């Protein structure tokens, strides 16, 4: 019914982000380590679309200030990629995935507070293994699902590993079933 009404009035309600599933990451990190040998790198990032102007600048200052004021002072960086999306990158000690997720959630909550949660695209938590392979656990905010992104070069990705990790993590996380939605995040921070 709401879809019909959206078509009639020419107005689709922007999809709100699903923030809660991010807290499933710590248990998935354990599975990744025991079942596949991937350990967290300690970084994590939130990727979103930010508008220009005072409102967003205020959010950014607030979030960065908040994170840097924490007791263990994680390293926080903000930068913009080629597609015009803003990345907030948090750098912590390797084994503190829970603290990392709390930090990422703080970024999300601050954006939501100012009405910008419709701009949240994805969150990325990179892992690596002893063989030097990198894989990013990506959370899609709008779909509320996860997928693994395993870049092997500037424009190549290891699809086999990605599919394999989908099956490995299926018990812990809601995995994205539509392969078209597995965005290629070339040059993402931490990968």
């Amino acid at each position, binding site marked *: 019914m709401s879809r019909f009404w959206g*078509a009639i009035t020419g107005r*689709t309600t922007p999809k709100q982000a699903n923030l809660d599933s991010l807290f499933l990451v710590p248990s998935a990190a354990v599975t990744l380590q025991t079942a596949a040998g991937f350990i967290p790198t300690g970084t994590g990032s939130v990727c979103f679309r930010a508008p*220009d102007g005072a409102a967003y600048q205020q959010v950014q200052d607030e979030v960065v200030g908040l994170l840097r004021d924490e007791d263990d002072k994680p390293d926080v960086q903000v930068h913009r990629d080629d597609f015009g999306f803003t990345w907030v990158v948090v750098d912590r000690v390797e084994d503190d995935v829970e603290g990392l997720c709390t930090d990422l959630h703080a970024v999300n909550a601050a954006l939501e507070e100012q*009405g910008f*949660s419709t701009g949240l695209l994805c969150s990325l938590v990179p892992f690596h293994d002893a063989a030097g392979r990198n894989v990013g656990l990506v959370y899609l905010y709008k779909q509320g699902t996860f997928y693994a992104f395993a870049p092997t070069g500037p424009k190549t990705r290891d699809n086999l590993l990605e599919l394999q990790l989908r099956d490995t993590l299926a018990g812990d996380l809601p995995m994205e079933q539509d392969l078209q939605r597995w965005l290629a995040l070339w040059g993402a921070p931490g990968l």
Partner: protein
Amino acid sequence: MARTRFGSDLGLTARMTTVMFLLGGIFVALIVVLMFVLPAQYAPFIALIGLGVVWWQWYNSDTVAMKAMRAREVTPEEAPELHAMIDRLVALADMPKPRVGVADVNVPNAFATGRSPNRSVVCVTTGILGMLTADEMEAVLAHELSHVAHRDVLVMTIASSAGIIAGGLGRGAQYGAWFGGGRRDNNNNGVPVWLVVLVISLVVYAVSFFLTRLLSRYRELCADRSGAYLTMKPRALATALQKIAGGMSAIPEKDLRASSAMNAFFITPAIKGVSLGQLTSTHPSLEQRLEQLAKIEAELSRPVDGSAEGPAAL
């Protein structure tokens, strides 16, 4: 409930709904009048054929439009940037990914078509690819994706159904005038049936023409709005529209006429409605569009304090 900055534009919605209501009224009026004028069994039959034509136009809108523009579908390998941009936009909007087409035309333009969001095409011309920056291109794509999400092809096709039937009837009546002109049928007061049908269909066609154009302009404003909120960059759409509008008039006549069949689905029309200006235009004026975008920009950059309620939560 999460706060949202996507307020509703009640004025626009009200105007648009009124126009759609009038279009529906025209359709019903046409059928009712036909039932009185023609022998009773004809009217539903004509309406059915008309609706069949309308359905066909809508059902095949993607292939027809792509062929009319001589556009071809491109794969992610052929146009990686375009696909990556669209991938991100559809992830943000949580909608199915449309197919992507490129038309080798110098006119800077873009259009979206297809019978449903699951089966749609977003097409850009090589002219627009060369003209816009990445930001602006994304804004244009978001505008086209909004057309898809709003099901504008379906809405506009239904809206024009009265006009299509009236147009067909008008032709049929002229035909009847040549071949059955001598007959007076069962009409006693001397006015031949074909003349009555011709006049009715002309009137319906004319009224429906202006109403669909009006509706089309409202739908464009809606798409601008949703697109700007999706990218959160109303400014990029504004500069894109300005560039395209400027590029339009600088392009030679010949190219413009070649693409006229697709005007209603373009981001800005390739031909200006000169004769009746605003009334017959499929797109709102640049000033109107920029004004709306300026409002959205202001809305997006205004900080809301923690305690107050967000603007018009939906």
